């Protein structure tokens, strides 16, 4: 009987293995072109993990304009549900490069994940006037300015990340106690609904939800990115230390091409607004009027340094990395 159990357990296990291998054969997803190391100047295919938001428009524009083609790079954007899924995909090598907000990468690096920032991703507003992010409240809310958020419930997409980082900074500047803000996690697409239903007192959102929210009559009380610093490097492209050491040439070519794409996107907002509707489902009407982030070929290191310091100040990372450790500079 004992023996029989073991025998049949093995049989079941074999069936599961068969299921797994049958899958390996049915394939179709990946052509395997991504992982291989490429010698200098050799064509290479890169899977780049991105999220479906306007911020990654330069990547799509760069593909369309042939900036990556000129570097013999084939870019395959891999849409992830959220930034949280991108880091593991890059670490595991499924994606060679990923797009992630700077704060997440600082925290990841402080947890000893072997990543390096390789290029600018996107930049916040120069001031509150052109900010692509906002903390919104209902029209009749008693919250008038940032310091009124004390004691209130504020939704952010991720706790201990760039949203609270910026809001805390803003409160600190006004001498208000940021520790008395009650943050709750609500994904951006659901935040305005939560605000309308009164489940939160204020909601931090990014475009296209800032435009949707102000169109619905909500008031802006602060702009967290711009509180951290004007022209904040909100997000960056990154890869692993291993990938850099094995494919330095490919990484350098990617950086050249994405930087060219950044400048192009910054100079051609109309093309950005058009291409955004091809890889997101942002309604064209909204895409025409929403605030765009800024893009540029340089990493704004001063703002990355500030982000590193603030993650420590607010306890999101107890021993954050040095900026030299975080950046790859070719």
């Amino acid at each position, binding site marked *: *009987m004992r023996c*029989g*159990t073991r*025998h*049949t*357990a093995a*049989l*079941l296990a074999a*069936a599961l293995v*068969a*299921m*797994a291998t*049958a*899958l*390996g054969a*049915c*394939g*179709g*997803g*990946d052509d395997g072109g991504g992982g291989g190391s490429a010698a200098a100047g050799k064509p290479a295919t890169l899977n780049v993990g991105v*999220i*479906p*938001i306007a911020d990654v428009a330069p990547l799509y524009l760069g593909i369309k304009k042939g900036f990556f083609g000129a570097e013999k790079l084939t870019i395959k954007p*891999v*849409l*992830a*549900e959220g930034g949280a*899924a991108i880091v*593991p*995909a890059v670490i*595991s090598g*499924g994606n060679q490069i990923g797009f992630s907000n700077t704060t997440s990468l600082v925290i990841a690096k402080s947890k000893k994940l072997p990543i390096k920032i390789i290029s600018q991703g996107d930049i916040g507003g120069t001031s509150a006037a052109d900010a692509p992010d906002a903390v919104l409240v209902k029209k009749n809310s008693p919250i008038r300015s940032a310091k009124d958020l004390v004691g209130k419930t504020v939704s952010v997409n991720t706790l201990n990340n760039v949203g609270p980082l910026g809001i805390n900074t803003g409160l600190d500047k006004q001498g208000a106690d940021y520790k008395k803000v009650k943050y709750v996690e609500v994904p*951006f*697409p659901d935040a*305005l*609904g939560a605000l*309308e*239903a009164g489940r939160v007192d204020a909601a931090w959102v990014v475009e*296209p*939800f800032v435009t*949707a929210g102000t169109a*619905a009559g909500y008031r802006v009380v602060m702009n967290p990115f711009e509180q951290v610093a004007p022209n904040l490097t909100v997000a960056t492209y990154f890869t692993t230390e291993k990938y850099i050491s094995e494919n330095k040439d490919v990484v350098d070519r990617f950086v050249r091409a994405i930087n060219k794409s950044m400048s192009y996107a910054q100079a051609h907002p109309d093309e950005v607004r058009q291409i955004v509707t091809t890889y*997101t*489902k*942002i*309604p064209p009407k*909204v895409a025409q009027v929403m605030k765009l982030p800024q893009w540029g070929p340089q990493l704004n290191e001063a703002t990355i340094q500030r982000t590193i310091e603030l993650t420590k100040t607010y306890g999101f990372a107890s021993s954050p990395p040095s900026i030299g450790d975080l950046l790859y500079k070719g």
Partner: protein
Amino acid sequence: MATVLAVFELLSRGGVIHRRYFPAISDTLATLWHELFTGELWNAVGHTLEGWALGLGIAIALAVPLGILIGSGRLLYRATRAIIEFLRPIPSVALIPLAVLVYGSGLESKVFLAAFASFWPLLVQTVYGVQDVDPVATDTARSFGFSRAQRLLRVTLPSAVPYIATGVRISSSVALILAVTAELVIGAAGLGREINLARSGGDVRLMYALIVATGLLGWVLSALFTRLERRVLHWHPSQRTAEGSA
């Protein structure tokens, strides 16, 4: 059905749920109608069905033979029962991290999850079906000198087929649920990913239109299987009473 639709319509139009975040069902259906004439929707449906078909196919190919094997022997059944009862309740969704790690974020992960989830109900149905064979029929066949293979083909299988058919129908909807879940969570191409894109783009109407489309797809598949079952098993007693009622 009409009542449910009317309730949803009133919830939204009456302002119980804000129309901006939960469109009236009439708006949703209008959006869906519009989507029916775009290639995007059908492309997504194709991707979802691809994952569903491969997942269900693999589950059938493995669960039916294994179920017959396990169901035919008392000892084998007792020996495997514990491990089946252990593995079966594992929600496939919990295996997503494993699937992503092993198969990445494409079709293979989706197929693995769909196959794993739809394997169990079919296996259990098949085992029960085989065990439910009338022992008199088996003994009769044996006394007539039928070989093991003949008994399987002429007595066991025909008797178990209705169970298996029900199992396939259940597994089909399980496979569809898992395919869409994988698209939603992992981002594999298909209806689930389109729903997510509509969500993160703030296009609430499109999101609900796609959700309704997913429901309709499940309904169509289930209806197809019920029909197929009736047609193939019209000779079986289990189908005779059902004939008139539905």
